[in-house]
């Protein structure tokens, strides 16, 4: 992006130079909102992490200052007595398996909808599309009864199936967009080489749609890791809690016990792994999302 502006500048050096002082002022002025927003984003997150190390006394005496002593006990308390440890493992299971299942179901369907003409193709695509607009809350009451009937209530496996079903329309929407850009000649060549449609899908199409698949995987995973409300309704016993519900439980407990340090330690446990993963994969995520926005 900088290179584009520089290229334009190099082509018309006089024009740019004559504006340079004014431009520099404008640039400086436009930086202010960026810096302010960066602070607005970072400060509460850093504060949460710091508060996780604080004793209750510290939190009340100087809520927004640095901890006087670095208290690691909060994290141990959140992990064990607050059941955040259990919740962390449950959330990890639901997130990883849920994302895999979503991809396993959405990739073949997207391919069929995008590339295989059959009767009802457009109708089915539009049904999935329309489902993105349905208020999920309307389905929660019957879902509760359904899960109860299937003996999947209060179980992370039931939750995983429900999550997958709710993310399928979005995943199909993004994946069909990406698959639409793959040249048809490649499939024709694969067919000529005698590859079955299934092998064409996994060996030719899937690798080419990889940036779309990664985008969908990340968006789904973020959703599953962070989902709270369905988990709250469908999970009842603390050993089945996922992170969202576990943290809500910590927050409710803190209302009575004033264990704020433990609560913030719990919040830190929920936030930090995702931010670390994002920092590692951010280039791919940004590329996928910006590309996806154009294609989708």
């Amino acid at each position, binding site marked *: 992006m900088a290179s584009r502006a520089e290229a334009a500048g190099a082509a018309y050096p006089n024009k740019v130079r004559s504006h340079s002082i004014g431009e520099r002022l404008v640039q400086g002025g436009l930086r202010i909102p960026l810096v302010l927003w960066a602070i607005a984003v970072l400060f509460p997150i850093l504060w949460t992490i710091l508060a996780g190390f604080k004793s209750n006394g510290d939190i009340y005496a100087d809520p927004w200052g640095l901890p006087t002593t670095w208290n690691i006990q909060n994290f141990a308390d959140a992990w064990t007595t607050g059941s955040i440890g259990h919740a962390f493992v449950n959330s990890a299971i639901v997130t990883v398996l849920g994302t895999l299942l979503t991809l396993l179901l959405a990739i073949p369907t997207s391919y069929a909808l995008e590339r295989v003409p059959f009767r009802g193709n457009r109708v089915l695509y539009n049904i999935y599309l329309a*489902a993105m607009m*349905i208020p999920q*809350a*309307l389905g929660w009451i019957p879902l509760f009864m359904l899960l109860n009937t299937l003996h999947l209530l209060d179980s992370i496996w039931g939750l995983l199936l429900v999550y997958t079903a709710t993310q399928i329309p979005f995943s199909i929407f993004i994946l069909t967009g990406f698959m639409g850009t793959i040249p048809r000649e490649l499939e024709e060549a694969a067919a000529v080489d005698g590859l079955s449609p299934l092998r064409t899908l996994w060996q030719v199409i899937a690798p080419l749609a990889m940036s779309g698949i990664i985008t969908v995987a990340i968006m789904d995973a973020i959703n599953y890791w962070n989902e709270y409300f369905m988990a709250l309704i469908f999970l009842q016993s603390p050993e089945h809690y996922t992170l969202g519900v576990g943290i809500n439980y910590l927050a409710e407990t803190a209302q009575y016990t004033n264990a704020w340090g433990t609560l913030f330690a719990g919040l830190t446990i929920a936030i930090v792994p995702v931010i670390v993963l994002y920092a590692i994969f951010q280039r791919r995520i940004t590329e996928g999302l*910006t590309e996806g*926005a154009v294609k989708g």
Partner: protein
Amino acid sequence: MVQPQRQRTFFLLICLVPTLLLFVVFTVYPLFSGLYLSFFDWTGLSQHRTFVGLANYDHLLHDPIIPKTIWHDYFLVLTKVIGIMVLSLFFAVALTQLRIKEAPVYRILFFFPNLMAVVVIGILWSFIYNPDLGLINAGLRAIGLDSWARPWLGDQQWALPSLVLPSVWAGIGLFMLMLMGGILNVPKEIYQSARIDGASEWQQFWHLTIPLVWPQIRNSVLYIVITTLNGSFIIVQIMTQGGPNNATQVMGSYLYQQAFQQFHFGYGAAIGVMILILSLITVLLLQWLMRGKRFEY
């Protein structure tokens, strides 16, 4: 492609049926079942349910809280769309069009809130708004505006506007990235020739950037509207539970309270149908209002 008909059919079934099965069982069936339940009086706990026809809808039309929840939802929709679009468009343009060396740092940082669970964001912001310990009141007192300090979330007048800031804070990053994708996709030559023609930065923004990224703007607005109407209640339920005195009650939080806390499942389902109808009307209206304006290049 030339393939035996049977192989093709088999392939299609493998591709489509498992997905459709899960989708129908866990999404389509609950939806229609919810529509059906809205004609019953049912506590959700007993086996017994009574068919009451349109009584739930009649009750809905006469429930004085319902108009409040609708108004609150649309207040959030409007303020969120304006707040998120103005800021994320500004950031997207600043990070792509201006020569800012540290642009990638901002791009990474601004996405952080999108990685956080709503429950985490809700708890965090409840603390920021806390009347005694909170950052906002502490800040106001520090600059001598003691009289402005107030129990934000407990204030009848300020509770609802206070919910806008966390929602905008949580939303910017994603939409900024989507708009950046749109802007980066515009051929460079267009901006170059606009510069030669003497267009100012401001003119370039209004006459080039906005029309060229219109599809992304439209998709973002639609996405914000849908997720707000269907999901705004989550932050409400975490931060205020609809209070004080229903000042922040939205359609979804009212549904949740009626169905899962007061056990009026039938009435909750009727509220769900209302949300469905309002979202569909709003989305269709918006699509019509924001139609066209696409700019070919």
